[in-house]
């Protein structure tokens, strides 16, 4: 099954990582075209192309661009969110490592459309190779007149610099990212004011994900209608899906937005591992509510369809769980992640994520009680919606959906009174480091 690809078309062409190779593959034609258009025409194209923000929220990109104040004379910034860290997500790293110029071309067009003259690419600290690829490509862009005082000979000027993170999931949240870029710990900021009004260094700021920006040159090249037609209603273009976990062919797949989860798993990824059946699927990164297989997976992988199904497309990170896996242990893993990554700023999140993680750890160690499940559900109600950012909600969604959808399995585990292995249903000793933890 092959469908047209755009975002990943240069991945097998290492030459395209250089400026010359990228140009040879048709690169920077979109920027050249964009510079002949009026900025508002570009914004209109992106709106008509139904480009949805691909960091997780799915907010229409063109509409977000329109929130920046008009006729503002002070500095404005673009912050590129390349702090990929949502468990299960591995698309922005490859986009930067294997085709850095595609993202940079998207940055240049976006900045021209929004009258921004300074961009920072905030790259996850662990991404050494992607950082170097972007750093080199930026240097080439300065040498070739893509960045600097006269972008491609026009009157438009643009500065663009890479900036490394240093290991903190919370910096993928746009205001946490801004705090981090300002040289502080990555505490999210209360909204409003939204970054479009008061962001980096208190100036109007646009924050866009790597994949969102990588789509922009293609929209300009082929036109909004052609891009929109690649996807489905209100979700234009192709999309990168990251498939991991217990599945025959895990990997990164570029497919039309209209693909269903079932088609993705069975037609593209080869279905379950030999002798196994798929039990559950997280469709959009670990913060998304889990779907039960086979009943709930015949759903289109676009932002609106998954929203209607009670979950979200998020970062399009599909994590597959089969019948060999204990849902208690899987949830224990996820809640440890959120407890570890809570920045500690808001009490309901700082205390809540740690509390529910400790309870589920006790359950996983075979020392739980049935009422622990209801206790967790009760704690969640005090976390959701009560914090500056959505990390608390992101922990609550998997917790609630795992327990509610797989309650019989949780209860059976508790009744057994033993710690079971993550996969394979074997009894396991409680690791020394955890003994006595409660």
């Amino acid at each position, binding site marked *: 099954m092959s469908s047209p690809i755009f975002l990943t078309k240069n991945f097998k062409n290492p030459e395209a990582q250089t400026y010359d190779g990228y140009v040879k593959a048709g690169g920077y034609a979109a920027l050249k075209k964009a510079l002949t258009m009026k900025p508002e025409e570009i914004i209109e194209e992106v709106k008509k192309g139904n480009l949805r923000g691909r960091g997780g929220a799915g907010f229409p990109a063109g509409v977000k661009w329109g929130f920046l104040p008009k006729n503002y004379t002070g*500095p404005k910034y673009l912050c590129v969110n390349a702090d*990929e*860290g*949502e*468990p*299960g*997500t*591995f698309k*922005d*790293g490859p986009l930067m490592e294997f085709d850095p110029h595609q993202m940079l071309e998207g940055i240049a067009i976006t900045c021209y459309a929004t009258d921004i003259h300074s961009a*920072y690419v905030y790259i*996850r*600290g*662990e*991404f*050494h*190779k992607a950082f170097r690829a972007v750093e080199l490509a930026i240097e080439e862009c300065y040498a070739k007149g893509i960045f600097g005082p006269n972008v491609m000979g026009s009157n438009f000027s643009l500065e663009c*610099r890479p*900036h*490394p*993170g*240093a*290991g*903190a*999931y919370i910096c993928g949240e746009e205001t946490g990212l801004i705090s*981090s*870029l*300002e*040289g*502080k*710990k*990555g505490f999210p900021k209360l909204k409003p004011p939204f970054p479009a009004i008061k962001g980096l*260094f208190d100036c109007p700021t646009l924050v866009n994900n790597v994949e969102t920006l990588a789509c922009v040159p293609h929209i300009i090249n082929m036109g909004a209608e052609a891009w929109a037609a690649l996807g489905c209603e209100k979700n234009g273009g192709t999309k990168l899906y*990251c*498939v*991991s*976990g*217990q599945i025959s062919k*895990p*990997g*990164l797949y570029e497919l039309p937005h209209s693909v269903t989860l079932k088609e993705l798993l069975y037609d593209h990824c080869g279905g379950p591992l030999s002798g196994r059946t798929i039990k559950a699927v997280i469709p959009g990164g*670990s913060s998304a509510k889990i779907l039960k297989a086979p009943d709930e997976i015949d759903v289109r992988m676009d932002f609106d369809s998954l929203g209607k199904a009670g979950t979200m497309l998020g970062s399009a*990170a599909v*994590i*597959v*769980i089969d019948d060999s*896996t204990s849902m208690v*242990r*899987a949830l224990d*893993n*996820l809640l440890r*992640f959120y407890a*570890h*990554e809570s*920045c500690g700023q808001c009490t309901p999140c700082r205390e809540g994520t740690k509390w529910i993680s400790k309870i589920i750890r006790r359950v996983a160690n075979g020392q739980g009680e049935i009422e622990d499940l209801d206790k967790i559900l009760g704690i969640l109600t005090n976390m959701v919606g009560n914090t500056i950012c959505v990390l608390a909600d992101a922990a609550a969604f998997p917790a609630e959906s795992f327990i509610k959808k797989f309650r019989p399995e949780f209860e059976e585990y508790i009744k057994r009174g033993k710690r079971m292995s*993550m*996969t394979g249903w074997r009894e396991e000793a409680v690791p020394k*480091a955890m003994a006595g933890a409660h």
Partner: protein
Amino acid sequence: MITAELKKKFDVLLGYYPADQRQAAVIPLLHLMQDTASGNYLTAESQQLVADYIGMPVSKVHEVVSFYTMLSEKPRGKNHMLVCHTLPCDLTGCSSVVSAIADKLHIHDGEVTKDGKFSMEEAECLARCGEGPVMQIGETVYTHLTAEKTAALIDELARKS
């Protein structure tokens, strides 16, 4: 102390930010400081040097160092092994990688071997989920690991360092 070579790099990085926002360069500068320090960590003295160079309070620098997992105030091994233990890697068997390291080197999360050659940290999602279990050492990511592959990799790295 900050060498002339390091100063040059610091100044390039500081030039990326508005003149009145020098503190924005603190993370890039701390990375450079840590990467060039023996033991790959940031002493109180090196944090003070960065603070003075930027012109920001050392307490603010320390706040940053203590917040981010990649910045360390404790020495790390020559080979600092980041073993991903988030769900996709756990579903594909990262616990066998952690056990292999414990068996072979007798170190657990956050510990360094006595000879200083290895340290291990159980890391949250390293964003290579399709190839799990994975481990990152420096710039290299090792994928599809098993206990045997991990043991062989440790032998190889021990010979080299």
